């Protein structure tokens, strides 16, 4: 391992872990919010340093082109969310929804979650990856239930049950992968190292690999929120604190999808094994169709955007399932832009719900009149998320649909129609939320708009002009994936 590179990786993991311990001990909420922000910022800097220095793969950790993209996105959104969380949490303390003790717990859990997600992305050992995803699940379960209301407890319990069943299935799949590798690679750590698995997968027993992939796809797919395994997702998003909804949608779902992608690469390297693509395409498409129709029946604003996350994770899974350089490129781009846009929307929604004191959409009207900045940010965010030009998601969705048309026209028609259905639902709701006579409290919002503007600005910029360096990078990763 090259020395500076492993230091960088060490920092990405050690900073959140150390700050989690520190935040658990610190009683003062002002300092801890600031400490939370500085810790996520340091992690982001360390993640960016990966572009300069990268360690050679070891038995436990690996840095390659694919996970650098994920880690940088993860730490960036983690940082902006911590900025948002600072102002959000201050308000929750004022209204008494959270006590200082719970706040300490909340900050420690936030850093633990960042640690777990970074570990999952950086791990080379598939067992270690599983442990990290489990740790991430555990921390989010605790945070979803933090308000201790009737609804929050039900959501946390449901999330816990479904999440742990998914995690259990994924472990079974991981054991099967090890068994498939053992007869070729030999016993020990190498048989669980992802880079060794991919290299030598051609000689593995196809039947064992097939079975393992079914378990892994269902297991990690539960965490991605793919229909019909999505039932935990809307509740967990709606009942937890909003910064957690932003991190769940923007990051944790990506981490689970990343795990699926890792195993997809192993499957594709074996010519005798089942093609993983069609399985992912069908689960993805099912999620898109299902979620876009479900969007119409939502009354709770956070729940509605949670369904939109199911839809978008479906689109991304669909794109990666189609495979090929173009679809993979579009999938990566869509994933990045969705993370940015959806977390920006949740930042807005968090402030809106605090000002209005409700999450029911029927009680929220005329936001652009009563709170112009907040209202128009929400409008911009929704315009981006439904895929209207000139925002970046238009481009990635366009790429996915057109590249599918060339290969599977029927699927492209279904996908395109579902996108239109979702667009209709979201614009319909947005019309009620943002325009008309203002309803409810009109007091000014004490919001931090920097994270929202930063995210939406990036999404807008991506729609106008993608930096060539980024395009080359994504193209390179996409060709490696296919």
């Amino acid at each position, binding site marked *: 391992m090259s020395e500076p590179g492993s230091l960088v990786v060490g920092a990405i993991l050690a900073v959140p872990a150390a700050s989690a311990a520190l935040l658990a001990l610190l009683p003062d909420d002002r300092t801890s919010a600031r400490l939370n922000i500085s810790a996520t910022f340091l992690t982001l800097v360390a993640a960016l340093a990966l572009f300069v220095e990268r360690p050679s793969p070891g038995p436990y950790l690996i840095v390659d082109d694919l996970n650098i993209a994920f880690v940088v996105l993860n730490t960036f959104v983690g940082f902006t969310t911590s900025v948002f969380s600072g102002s959000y949490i201050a308000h929750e303390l004022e209204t008494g929804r959270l006590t200082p003790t719970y706040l300490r717990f909340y900050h420690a859990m936030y850093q633990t979650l960042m640690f777990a997600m970074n570990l999952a992305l950086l791990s080379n*050992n598939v*067992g*270690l990856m*599983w*442990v990290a995803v*489990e*740790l991430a699940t*555990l921390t989010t379960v*605790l945070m979803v*239930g933090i308000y*201790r*209301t*009737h*609804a929050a*407890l*039900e*959501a*946390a*319990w449901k999330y*816990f*049950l479904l999440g*742990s*069943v998914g995690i*259990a*299935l994924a*472990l*079974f799949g991981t*054991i*099967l992968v*090890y*068994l498939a590798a*053992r*007869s070729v690679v030999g*016993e*020990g*750590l190498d*048989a*669980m190292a992802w880079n060794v698995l991919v290299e030598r997968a051609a000689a593995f*027993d196809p*039947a*064992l690999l*097939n*079975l393992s992939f079914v378990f892994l796809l269902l297991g990690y797919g539960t965490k991605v929120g793919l229909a019909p395994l999505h039932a935990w997702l*809307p*509740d967990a998003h*709606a*009942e937890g604190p909003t910064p957690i909804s932003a991190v769940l949608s923007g990051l944790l779902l990506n981490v689970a999808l990343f795990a699926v992608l890792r195993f997809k690469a192993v499957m594709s390297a074996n010519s005798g094994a089942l093609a993983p693509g069609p399985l992912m395409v069908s689960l993805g498409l099912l999620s898109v169709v299902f979620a876009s129709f479900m969007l119409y029946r*939502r*009354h*709770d604003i956070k*729940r509605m955007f949670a369904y939109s996350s199911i839809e978008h994770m479906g689109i991304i899974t669909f794109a990666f399932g189609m495979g090929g350089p173009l679809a993979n490129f579009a999938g990566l781009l869509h994933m990045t832009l969705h993370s940015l846009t959806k977390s920006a929307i949740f930042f807005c929604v968090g402030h809106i719900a605090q000002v209005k004191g409700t999450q*029911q959409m*029927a009680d929220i009207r005329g936001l652009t009149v009563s709170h112009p900045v907040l209202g128009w940010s929400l409008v911009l965010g929704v315009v981006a998320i439904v895929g209207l030009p000139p925002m970046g998601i238009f481009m990635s969705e366009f790429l996915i649909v057109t590249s599918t048309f060339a290969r599977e026209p029927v699927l492209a028609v279904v996908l395109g129609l579902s996108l239109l259905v979702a667009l209709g639902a979201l614009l319909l709701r947005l019309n009620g939320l943002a325009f008309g006579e203002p309803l409810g409290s009109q007091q000014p919002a004490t919001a931090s708009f920097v994270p929202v503007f930063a995210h939406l600005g990036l999404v807008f910029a991506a729609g106008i002009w993608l930096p060539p360096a980024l395009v080359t990078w994504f193209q390179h990763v996409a060709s490696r994936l296919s």
Partner: protein
Amino acid sequence: MDRLALDVAHLFAGGLVLVSFMLLYQDRIFGLLNIFALHALVVSVSVAWQAYIQQAPHLYITATIALVVKAFVIPVALHRIIVRLGIHREIDPVVGIGQTMLAGIGLVALSIMVMLPIAAEAGTLVREDLAFALSVVLLGLLMMISRHNAVSQVIGFMSIENGLILAATGAKGMPLVVEISVAFSILVALIVIGVFLFRIRERFDTVDVSTLDQYRGGRP
């Protein structure tokens, strides 16, 4: 590996499937706890046997953890919680016991039919062990979906974990990750018991999850 070692390993793994069935037909909470302790005991013995025949001393640690934590600490802790909360009544299953047992038999047949041909190359010990482990996992899932009661669901989940431990130890030479994951599952179990049961008690005076289901978030 000699024939006897194999037969004994299969005996324990098969015994675990049998105990999983016993979990399915328990209709009293305390009975359920006792059978779960037995379940953990069988896993522990089975893992210890694997440690002996594979000459893998680190598996004894896994066996000891399973024995101490799952066969003693957790059942005793749950027992005390239940007594303190005063919820020791009968479990009402969602589906009748008879249908659940039939479904369980179907699941065992399914896992044997799936596993035996696929894992044929992996060696006799692993092959049967995996088939039994998958049966235990599926029976645990069945238990989780056929009971409304939070305690039964936690026990169903822990029996799934026992099945996974059986599979992981049967896979000879699997690296240290087994221990980490076992430690994690214990953590999960403790958190569930510590946090959720108390919180649920605080709010609803019952651990029957069906009272939670009456709430429908987001719908007026």
